[in-house]
C-alpha cells in the first residue's frame, strides 16, 4: 500500500510558524521552498519595482505589491515577486490574506524548476489573474502569458507592453535588465 500524502490547505499553511531564513509557498497542497534570489534577480526586481511604481503613480488606480502572499485557492498560496492589484480587492480593515490571484503576477526567474513555473502560471490565470510576466534576467527576455492560448516574448530591443492589464504602459525591455 502506498504512502498517503495529506495535502496542506492555505489556512493551515498560513497558520504555521514561519521558518527563519526560508521563504515558502504552498503549491498543490505541498510546501515548497522558494529559494533566495541572487543579485541579477534582485536587480531586475528593483528595476521593475521602480518602473511600475512610477508608472502606476501617474496611471491609477491599480497598485503595486511586492512579495505578497495570495491564497489562490484551497491548496495554493503563491508569492509572486511583484504583483499588480486592481482596486476593490482589499477592503478597509481587511485581515488575513488576499484571496485569488493578482491581476498581474510577475515572477523573476532564477533557480525555479520549469514545471513549477508552468504550474504557477496556470494557477494565476485560472484564479483571476489576467496576465503573468515571467522575467528571465540571464536571457534578458520577458514572456507575457494571458488567458488566451498565445503568449508573447519581449526581447531586449523592444518595448514591453501589456494592454490587458496596464493599458498605455510601454517600457523598453532593456530598462528592466539595466545593471544586470
Amino acid at each position, binding site marked *: 500500500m502506498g504512502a498517503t500524502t495529506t495535502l496542506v490547505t492555505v489556512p493551515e499553511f498560513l497558520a504555521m510558524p514561519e521558518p527563519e531564513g526560508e521563504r515558502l509557498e504552498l503549491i498543490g497542497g505541498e510546501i515548497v521552498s522558494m529559494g533566495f534570489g541572487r543579485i541579477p534577480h534582485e536587480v531586475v526586481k528593483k528595476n521593475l519595482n521602480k518602473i511600475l511604481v512610477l508608472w502606476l503613480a501617474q496611471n491609477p488606480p491599480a497598485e503595486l505589491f511586492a512579495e505578497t502572499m495570495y491564497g489562490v485557492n484551497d491548496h495554493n498560496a503563491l508569492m509572486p515577486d511583484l504583483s499588480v492589484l486592481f482596486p476593490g480587492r482589499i477592503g478597509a480593515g481587511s485581515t488575513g490574506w488576499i484571496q485569488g490571484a493578482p491581476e498581474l503576477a510577475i515572477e523573476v526567474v532564477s533557480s525555479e524548476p520549469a514545471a513549477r513555473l508552468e504550474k504557477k502560471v496556470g494557477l494565476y490565470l485560472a484564479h483571476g489573474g489576467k496576465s503573468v510576466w515571467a522575467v528571465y534576467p540571464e*536571457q534578458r527576455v520577458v514572456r507575457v502569458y494571458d488567458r488566451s492560448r498565445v503568449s508573447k516574448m519581449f526581447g531586449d530591443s523592444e518595448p514591453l507592453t501589456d494592454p490587458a492589464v496596464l493599458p498605455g504602459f510601454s517600457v523598453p525591455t532593456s530598462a528592466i535588465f539595466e545593471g544586470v
Partner: protein
Amino acid sequence: MFQRPPELAIEVVSSEKAAHLETKIELYLAHGAKSVWVAYPQRRVVRVFDPVGGAKRFEHDEPLVDPNVLPGFAVPTSAIFEGV
C-alpha cells in the same frame, strides 16, 4: 553531431530549471529551428514556441497542430499524455 538544430525540437519537462529551458528554446530558434514544443506532463500542457517570439498553448482534447513544421499534422493533445 549535427551542426544545426533540428527543424522541430521537442522537450519534455521533468526536473529542468526554467531558466535553462528558456535558454534552450532561444538557442534552437535563433539557430534555425522552426518550432520548439515543450511538453509538461504534470499539467498535461504543450506549448509550441515559434521563432518570432510567440508561443501557443495546447491542452485537453484540443488538436495539437504545427503547420509551419508539420503541415496537416493534428493529434489530440491528451493523446500525448496517455498513461501519465
